């Protein structure tokens, strides 16, 4: 895999490439409901680079949070200190998310399927799981009610699966118009950013590989996908992180493990 050399500083890591590519998806002024971990880091990178007016909402009830570094939890004190408003948890989910005031829901996942449905509940059988994952949290309603959703996860046969062990949050359901027939107000997943590349739904809602990160190959992407992966005719290569993007990202995450 090719590492991108930038002036002054080590090459971008896989996580950094994912984060930078994800951050670029957020337009300035977007109202984004942010999941913890990489989505939160990406959203904060966006706010510190091209999208200073992005409004970050965390499920802890902080609206317009402006943390100086990505928080460890969705309820860190700095989120409340820097927010435009702090509301209760019932209010954030009802008045703000359910009522349609969120443009983008930015989620992580343990598993996705070809239609961008998400599992964060169990690996294996529900009653006797191999791995008990944290569960739904805010994701099912974010996935249902945000204007669109962006998803970030590392791509492997264990994470990109033919069949989810549990459907925690709905993407494009079974494809075609099955999502809208469920009565969902949001448009569902519009982009999935992985360590290998970028996938976007085609007209049927199936995730198609539309871009590779520099140095990654179609073969790697296919091998890391548990269903027959469709590759877009006009496959792109994502632009390497710029020196500025990496500088800001590293300043944001300095001292954060």
């Amino acid at each position, binding site marked *: 895999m090719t590492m991108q050399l930038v002036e002054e500083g080590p090459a971008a890591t896989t996580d950094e490439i994912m984060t930078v590519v994800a951050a670029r998806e957020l337009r300035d002024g977007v109202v984004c409901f942010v999941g*913890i*971990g990489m989505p939160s880091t990406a959203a904060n990178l966006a706010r510190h680079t091209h999208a200073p007016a992005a409004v970050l909402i965390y*499920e*802890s*009830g*902080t609206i317009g949070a402006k943390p100086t570094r990505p*928080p*460890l*939890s*969705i*309820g*860190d*004190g700095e*989120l*409340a*200190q820097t927010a435009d408003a*702090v*509301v*209760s*948890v*019932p209010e954030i*989910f*009802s008045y703000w*998310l*359910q009522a349609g005031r969120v443009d983008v829901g930015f989620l992580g996942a343990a598993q996705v399927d070809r239609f961008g449905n998400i599992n964060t*509940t169990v690996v294996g059988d*529900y009653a*006797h*799981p*191999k*791995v*008990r994952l*944290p*569960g*739904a*949290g*805010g*994701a*099912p*309603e974010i996935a*249902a*009610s945000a204007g669109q959703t962006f998803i970030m996860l590392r791509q492997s046969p264990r994470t990109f699966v033919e069949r989810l062990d*549990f*459907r*925690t*949050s*709905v993407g494009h*359901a079974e494809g075609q118009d099955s*999502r809208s027939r*469920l*009565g*969902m*107000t949001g448009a569902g997943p519009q982009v999935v950013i992985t360590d290998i590349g970028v996938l976007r739904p085609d007209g049927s809602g199936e995730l198609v590989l539309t871009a590779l990160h520099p140095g990654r190959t179609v073969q790697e992407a296919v091998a890391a996908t548990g269903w027959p992966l469709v590759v877009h005719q006009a496959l792109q290569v994502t632009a390497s992180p710029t020196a500025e993007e990496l500088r800001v990202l590293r300043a944001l995450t300095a001292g954060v*493990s």
Partner: protein
Amino acid sequence: MATFQSLADAVASNVFDGDVVAMEGFTHLIPYAAGHEVIRQRRSDLTLVRMTPDVLYDQMIGAGCARKLVFSWGGNPGVGSLHRFREAVEQGWPRPLQIEEHSHAGMAARYVAGASGLPFGVLRGYVGTDLPEHTATIASITCPFTGEQLTAVPALAPDVGIIHAQQVDRCGNVGIWGIQGVQKEAVLAAKRSIVTVEEVVDELDPRVRVVLPAWVVSSIAIVPRGAHPSYAHGYYERDNDFYQAWEAVSRDRAAFASWVDEHIHDTGGFAEHLALVDRQVLPA
């Protein structure tokens, strides 16, 4: 009317074996001191309710207090798994743990219904997910006005609601600011309630956003740093090192058991536990 009590007395007079107990605090103001006291008094067969069972419920589940967990997200935020919770679900240790699993929006609707004295809450949620298949307390309902298919979830009405807050005035009115979670709903939905607070003040701080009047709270106990390792806005920061160190303590049954003995059963109260924490870096 709120009674000022020691935490030990507040737990002894409000929390009983077999109770449904909701301890709330969304990352902020998690009532750790009260949870430790429940463990110390060896309460058992509890149904523990909490949106985000984190390290506190990991401790209570590992200590054998719980028969059932009602929740929406069980993890160590930003760190990883709850190993005691996982071992209870995956291997039934130290005892099998029944689970009733929801989403945050569903749990929030259940608390609001409970606080409102309604039998159920309603939301656009769960549709198309596998949750309704495994959780009996999720049902479809038709809006009588528009015909829209919505989801109903039953009210939460815990026997006891337990929260931590920044302040109480001398009359027993409780004040909270910063991230407020479902603190208010957890108290109002419950039959009885315990509020631990950082301090008693003559007048509540002007930053206070949520006030629980004295007459809706059963017991108040003054417990400085009672939310550690979570935080109390305006008083102390979240102890992220503790959350990270918990990973190693909780991974191993024996390490966990000796931690519970040393920090809970062999201490007289939360202040002694805090003194231990201040003195030592958690075994890594």
